[in-house]
């Protein structure tokens, strides 16, 4: 992560105010910061979204490509995550500086999306046993202001919601079956993202379990639990991070709190995406 140096006094300040149930910005433990979601900004992609959570800025582009199926799973499509930490976020990411963080986030995303109900994998299969869609989900990290995992997962889900997969027509040829990808921009199908998880990170700061930690709060927290939560409240992946350890009771409390927040977040996000879609507004992107 980016360098945030906090003195012991500053850490103590955050910890003490947490005891009085005040976070540095006045939020409660289960409150998120202000978030902006926008979809369809990059016309070169099949689906794109930008999420700005306080100063965390994430841009996701999804491109689809026809590839041969994985022989082990002949009836489903595939997805692949790639995350690039742009040096715009911090000079520490220059060159290969952000690769460690990038691989951590992609690993978590891959795990969260690896369960079969995350997205409608069978619908991504074009010709069973032969061709399927491969979704390249490319994430660009433009600015870090804490809670990257959650913001990235929200952006990914929004981009998948925005995804427009061109329709494919199949014609039987003497050589086999010929696939013809439609180049009409209005001839497409959408992807069902109802089951897609959102990662919720619960930080343990002092004795409190805090979601959507700012960068400063992240420095104060010794251990955090990340969970991929679906709209139904199921957990698709879990991981503990940080140098500290947790007792079993607080883990179960953290899971509960993540579930509560995650379900709510999923609902809100889908609502917002639906309304945005209905309004047919032109994306403003970075010009705002």
């Amino acid at each position, binding site marked *: 992560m*980016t360098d945030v140096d906090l003195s012991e006094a500053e850490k103590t300040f955050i910890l003490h105010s947490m005891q009085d149930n005040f976070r540095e910005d006045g939020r409660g433990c289960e409150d998120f910061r202000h978030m902006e979601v926008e979809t369809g900004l*990059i*016309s*070169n*992609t099949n689906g*794109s979204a930008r999420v700005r959570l306080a*100063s965390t*800025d994430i*841009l996701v*582009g*999804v*491109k689809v*490509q026809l590839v041969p199926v994985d022989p082990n799973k002949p009836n489903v499509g595939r997805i692949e995550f*790639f995350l*690039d930490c*742009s*040096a*715009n*976020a*911090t*000079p520490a990411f*220059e*060159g290969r500086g952000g690769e460690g963080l990038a691989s951590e986030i992609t690993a978590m995303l891959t795990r969260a999306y690896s369960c079969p109900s995350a997205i409608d994998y069978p619908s991504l299969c074009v010709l069973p046993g032969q061709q399927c869609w491969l979704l*390249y989900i*490319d994430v*660009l990290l*433009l*600015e*870090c*202001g804490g809670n990257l995992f959650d913001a990235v997962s929200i952006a990914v889900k929004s981009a998948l919601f925005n995804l427009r997969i061109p329709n494919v027509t199949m014609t039987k040829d003497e050589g086999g079956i010929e696939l013809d990808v439609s180049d009409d921009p209005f001839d497409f199908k959408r992807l069902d993202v109802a089951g897609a998880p959102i990662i919720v990170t619960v930080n343990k700061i002092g004795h409190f379990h805090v979601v959507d930690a700012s960068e400063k709060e992240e420095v104060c927290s010794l251990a955090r639990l990340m969970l991929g939560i679906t709209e139904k409240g199921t957990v698709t992946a879990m991981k503990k991070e940080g140098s500290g350890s947790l007792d079993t009771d607080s883990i179960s409390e953290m899971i509960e709190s993540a579930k509560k927040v995650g379900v709510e977040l999923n609902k809100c996000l889908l609502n917002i995406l639906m309304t945005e879609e209905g309004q047919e507004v032109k994306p403003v*992107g*970075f*010009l*705002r």
Partner: protein
Amino acid sequence: MAGMELLSDQGFRTDGRKPNELRRIRFKKGVFKQADGSAYLEQGNTKVLAAVYGPHEIRGGKGKALHDQLLINCQYSMATFSTQDRKRRPRGDRKSLEMTAHLKQTFNAVILTELYPKVQLDIYVEVLQSDGGNYCASVNAATLALIDAGIPMKDYVIACSGSYIRDTPVVDINNLEESSAGAEIIMAILPRCEQIVFIEMNSRLHEDHLSPVMDQVMTGCKDIFNILNQQVRDELCKKSAQDRIVDSG
């Protein structure tokens, strides 16, 4: 591109522009809080983000420091989804390394480097969507980011591209025009003193045609300059007016 006329008989280009017409330019300075200066710029469908960090202490090895001037460090990278076909790597390939070197040269010529000896300035450019003229958009965005960061410069650096299609010089070419034969000329200039800091041409062009194209590109650069300068000034006026209200209030 058979069957596709880059310049129609009526004198219009594929995207409906006239030969000497620029694409729409929109930009915003200061899009990021953490960077010392940042800017977002759209030139038609080419979208670029630039961030400037510094001047700060030399990072990694004092050996790189220049004893009498500022060290300018650039990184050009393209989002993997920015191009029509997905890119495998955002940076590190030959083309982006070349672009990084070009940017470095360009800004070395315009920043008053002797004011900051032994320190470093980072210019990071990220192409979000590419539709021709990546270098030009990058230079223009970085110039705005430098202005946002308050780095002393001799002048704006403005870059623009041009080509020669059907006996007509055209300006600010898009991806389609870039990729379908024809020569491409890229120039970065200091618009007020009309100095060229960077020029590149690829493919073949008859000597006689060179100067009309260069003139056209030069005009393009100046047009871009006027657009950028106007908005930068307006914003500054607005801001200082606000500050005055705050001060007096």
